[in-house]
């Protein structure tokens, strides 16, 4: 059996309050969905190991342990949360597809994050896709954000589990290509 190489990568989950960051993490890590939001000192940490399938030639034989830093909502007054950005290898930026009008505040947290971690890999998650009637309109708005930050995106539902696993796998593949 081929020996697998272990990596540990720090991933931050960024997004406005109530967009579904924690739910996404819980669905991915524990395969659970809970309506309750976990209140911490501003961060909730958990981890999951992904074994990259052999079809990914660049990453085959690698094991990736994703350390997920689920950060509380950040605004301009909450400078403390920014400390948790340090040393991150990547981030999942989560948007609520039902409230995309709030996306204009993305700069407030994403800019400091990229300033601290210029080489970090980003992926955009348009969450709560199960609640959206007109997906095309939402997708258009989301693609605009993706283009701005040059990041791929996925439409996800923490509630149904739709696209949650591919979201993290996509990010994992990107991390290994870079790292």
């Amino acid at each position, binding site marked *: 059996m081929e020996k697998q*190489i*272990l*990596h*540990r*990568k*720090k991933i931050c989950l960024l997004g406005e309050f109530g967009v579904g960051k924690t739910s996404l993490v819980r669905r991915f890590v524990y395969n659970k969905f809970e309506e309750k939001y976990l209140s911490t*000192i*501003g*961060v909730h*940490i*958990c*981890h999951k190991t992904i074994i990259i399938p052999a079809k990914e030639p660049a990453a085959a034989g690698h094991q990736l*342990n994703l*350390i997920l*830093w689920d950060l509380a909502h950040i605004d301009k007054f909450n*400078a*403390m949360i920014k*400390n*948790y950005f*340090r*040393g*991150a*290898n990547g981030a999942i930026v989560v948007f609520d597809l039902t409230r995309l009008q709030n996306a204009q505040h993305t700069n407030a947290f994403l800019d400091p994050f990229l300033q601290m971690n210029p080489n970090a890999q980003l992926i955009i998650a348009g969450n709560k896709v199960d609640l959206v009637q007109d997906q095309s309109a939402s997708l258009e708005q989301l693609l605009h954000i993706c283009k701005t930050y040059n990041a791929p995106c996925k439409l996800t539902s923490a509630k149904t589990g739709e696209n949650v696993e591919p979201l993290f796998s996509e990010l994992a593949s990107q*991390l290994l290509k870079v*790292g």
Partner: protein
Amino acid sequence: MTAPKDKSLEALRQILLREDLIKLQKLEHELLDLRQTISDKESLIVALEPIIANLLERKIAVSREEMAEALAPIMGEAIRLRVAEAKEDVIDALYPVIGKIIRKSVAEAMKKFIDSVNQKIDQTLQSRVFRRRVQSKLTGVPENALVIKDSLPFKIEQIFLIHRESGTLISHVSSQDAAAKVNEELISGMVTAIRDFASEAFSVGKDHDMDALQFDDKKILVELGNHFYLALVITGYEPAGFQDEVHRLSSRLHHRFHKFFRTFQGELTKSGEITKCITRFFDKHHQGRVTAEGTRSRPYLLYLLMALVIFATTIFAIRKIPPLLMQRRLLQTIAEQFQAVPELRQQPLHFRLSGGHLIISGNVPSTRHLALIDSVAKQIHGLDIVQNRVMVHDQAAFQSEIIHRIQQQLQQDHRWQHLSLRFIVEDDHLVIEGDVPDLATKRDIGFMVSEMPGVHMVINNLTITASPPLELEAAQQQMPQYTIYFKVNDATIPAAELEKIAALLEYIKRWDDAKLIVTGYSDNSATSSYNLALSEQRAKAVADYLIAQNFPAHRIIIRYFGDSNPVAPNDTEAGRAKNRRVEFAVEQERQ
């Protein structure tokens, strides 16, 4: 007419009741004040407080138990009610009082404990105590505090090495039971988050960091490196010096892996090596206080023993090496001297020094070579004793040569001429057999043979022939024929008398253990005292001659009696000539 009458009555009333009315008004005022006092609780308390306090004090002083009995049910009920109605208020009210009592009790208990520790310190004379005292003097920490710290349990449960910036776990070491319970990645992340949180919250603008987190009996100690930090989960109280050891571990890790830490992006390529380093540290400490103590305390006794061994070795080297070098040089000189003799140059000779003796061994073709070796050895300066153990190749010739030389020696000494001895050469030793008269003879012959060149070992089987029993009476009868006669007023032994002494010696030698009594006499020609002195001189003259003839002095007994005991009348010349004599007698030596 009625109105003026009323006025008069009123005036009369005013005159008669004026004083009473004033008193009544005054009473009304006092009553009003009293009502006000009663209605105002604070005023009433102020008014009654000194009275009631005095009353209670007096009552308690007179009958304390009675008061307690009376008040107990009321007070108990009141307290119960108050507690039930306003628990928080009661706690708030009692907290300062109870806190003081608890603090006092704890302080007293601690004082007793510290006194006990101090007593133990005073009673114990151990190296650890001495070390602790020194440590206390150096650090300024009271000795009893160090004792307490050392006495408390301590154990490392887990060690995390975490990337300082990202909080990513690089290495984790724990005991097996702890490993099953923890999610190490989660802990690493959370400890990092808490560190960041604490730094941000409490160290604004300062270069401070979190040193430890404590929960119940567990503590997470944090040791910061440049790119990573160590988080040690411990229980109990870390012993003195433990932080220094953790710091040293951190420095070692930094020194070895700083490139890896600096460029760390999540790849755990060096994780295994790092874990090995940490495991060594963990294994040393996680067994608890004893192990931690063991690593902390230096093995001073071992150091002392090592120092002693080194010291002893050095002294030994200083004392022994120069003599050894000198010996080696001397042996080289000796070998050169033998090499200088052409006939010995090709001979395989070996030289060895033992206790100041030179021992020569090897093989030579003839006894001539052997004699040559002897002569060269005698010329070596500074060596008194030389043992020539060189063998001759032709053993038969060599043996007969040795025996011949021994027999020559025996013939040259008159003491041994009459002895009949046999010499047998067996392998590397020489056996002597035969009879000898005494132990001295046996010893002297053995020594003579062992000194012969080529003889390495002598087995002295000489038998001491027992002397015949002394037949005292017969011997005494023989003695008169050996009596020595002297000239007038002379102590010199006449030459003609010497033969008698030779015969006496021959006769008496058969008894090794017999004493010879030599008794001097004189005639009565002079005074008695003169005669006594003359007889003494005669006895001594004979004794000296006997000793000169190798007769043992310790076997001679000298006696003298002057002109006493004449053997003939002194009135004739012939009689006096018989009295000027020395007589002999034998006596069995006392056991």
